[in-house]
């Protein structure tokens, strides 16, 4: 369990003091995939870097399985960091080492015997699907492959916690999908706790169980992903959840029910879904806002549909849409 208690962090810069974190309290349970989402500059990286003490908090505590991270000696901290590994937006592989040696790196640091390290690294590279790239150098790999190596490296020391700071932000949507599924797979298989930092809703929607919304150094909202996304309360959450330009206060009629349709790589067949729904169910939907993107023949993003009518119609429409592959739906509670 990770307990973050009253965490603050201020930076002294030539331009004055920057309060990056203003009193964050958060608990991450073992086995969670915990999303931390927020706009650029919200303090996400600072928060995650405080967890493994890459950044020393100005005040407050980070307690991991009962151990206060701020009170560890340098040596204890180095040992503890083998339990809390990290992957990064820029992958941060050692460019002069091949894949195998990159994965061996944390094992070397820990003083593991070379033959054992090689065995473990080979095993991990096979798990992440790069069994044929052991002797390739990072420069010879695509971004997605580099992140896979970084994931293998992060797992080498059998960590309990994996921190992902914008791990997919430098990747295209398709590669993002595959890396996210890999993280999920690893989580399910190894039962490690994962903290996912991102500014993309879709990332949280796809793999997280819980989410905290970070806004200007404060936690605006925290809870189960489905709860927060179904009924965002804070402005920060609303800005993230609703497509651009959508104001929840306007344009919803008295008798109108709204729900959100999230596309996670749904096949965009030539079938016009909304028109088809009108034909099949005799329910007309009104597109209130949409922000979708097609990559190849797959759609990503979300859309807000309004249905005039009662609960019954809403339920039917949501079921209809929700039954399509790679689409999920959430009612928006006004």
């Amino acid at each position: 369990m990770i307990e973050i208690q009253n965490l603050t962090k201020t930076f002294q810069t030539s331009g004055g003091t920057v309060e990056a974190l203003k009193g964050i309290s958060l608990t991450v349970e073992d086995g969670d995939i915990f999303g931390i989402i927020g706009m650029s500059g919200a303090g996400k990286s600072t928060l995650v870097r405080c967890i493994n003490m890459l950044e020393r908090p100005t005040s407050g505590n980070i307690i991991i399985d009962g151990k206060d991270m701020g009170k560890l000696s340098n040596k204890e901290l180095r040992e503890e960091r083998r339990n809390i590994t990290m992957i990064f937006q820029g992958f941060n592989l050692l460019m002069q080492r091949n894949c195998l040696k990159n994965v061996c790196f944390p094992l070397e640091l820990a003083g593991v015997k070379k033959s054992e390290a090689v065995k473990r690294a080979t095993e991990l590279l096979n798990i992440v699907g790069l069994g044929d790239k052991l002797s390739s150098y990072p420069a010879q790999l695509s971004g997605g492959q580099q992140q896979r190596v970084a994931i293998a490296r992060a797992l080498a020391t059998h960590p309990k916690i994996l921190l992902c700071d914008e791990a997919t932000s430098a990747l295209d949507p398709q590669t993002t999908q595959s890396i996210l599924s890999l993280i999920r797979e690893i989580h399910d298989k190894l039962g490690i706790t994962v903290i996912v930092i991102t500014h993309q809703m879709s990332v949280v929607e796809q793999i997280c169980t819980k989410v905290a919304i970070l806004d200007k150094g404060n936690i605006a909202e925290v809870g189960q992903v489905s709860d927060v996304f179904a009924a965002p309360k804070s402005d920060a959450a609303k800005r993230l959840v609703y497509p651009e330009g959508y104001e929840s206060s306007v344009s919803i009629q008295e008798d109108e029910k709204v729900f959100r349709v999230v596309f996670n790589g749904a096949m965009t067949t030539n079938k016009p879904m909304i028109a088809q729904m009108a034909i099949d169910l005799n329910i007309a939907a009104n597109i209130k806002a949409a922000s979708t993107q097609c990559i190849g023949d797959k759609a990503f993003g979300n859309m807000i549909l309004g249905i005039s009518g009662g609960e019954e119609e809403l339920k039917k429409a949501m079921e209809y849409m929700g039954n399509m592959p790679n689409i999920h739906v959430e009612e928006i509670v006004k």
Partner: protein
Amino acid sequence: MIADYFASDTVQTALDILKTQFPIAIWETVYVTILSTAFSIIIGLPLGVLIVAGEDGKILKIPKAVLSVLNVIINLLRSVPFLILMIMVFPLTRLIVGTVVGTPASVVPLVIAAFPFVARLVESSLRELNPNIIEMAQSMGSSPFQIIAKVMIPESMPSLISNMTIALTTILGYSAMSGILGGGGLGKIAINYGYYRYQYLVMIFAVVFLIVLVQLFQSLGTYLATRTDKRLKNR
């Protein structure tokens, strides 16, 4: 006309000198240069590492005052012209080598002049390193020593090799200059024959060999630097 010139005494003496004195002179120049570069790296590399690793206490906790003193010493040594430095270190040279003239003696001033330069070159190579890489190493539990030995130096190796090649060729130039004040090698020949005895042809020969040596060292350095660099694709 031209045939006459080549048959003339000047040319004959020059060719004689080329045959009898150049092999040794070239050898002296090469070994002084390599030895001086090696010692300069032995002193300069750790210094450069300390300066980068100690900055803002990021990797090593080194008192600010110590770093400032190191920087001042490096700057001071770098601002003294080489020939003057050579004279200034005569006592030290005498202490270490026992004499201030001759080829081995020139190693001392060369090292004193070059190690601060090497330290700066090392510093600049290490600064090119992506700071995120160091952060990664810290996040995986690297000790300061492991960061230096397993990350900073190996990851900067191609750049270090290029920069050490620059140091080597610069030291080669200085070693020739040391010929004025008792140093041996090609520089001594160029000055003794070209400057004191007006045998320009000998001087030109010496210069040609210096150029060839610089070219050789530079090509070798560039070759090694590119060969070690695993960031380059398609190999």
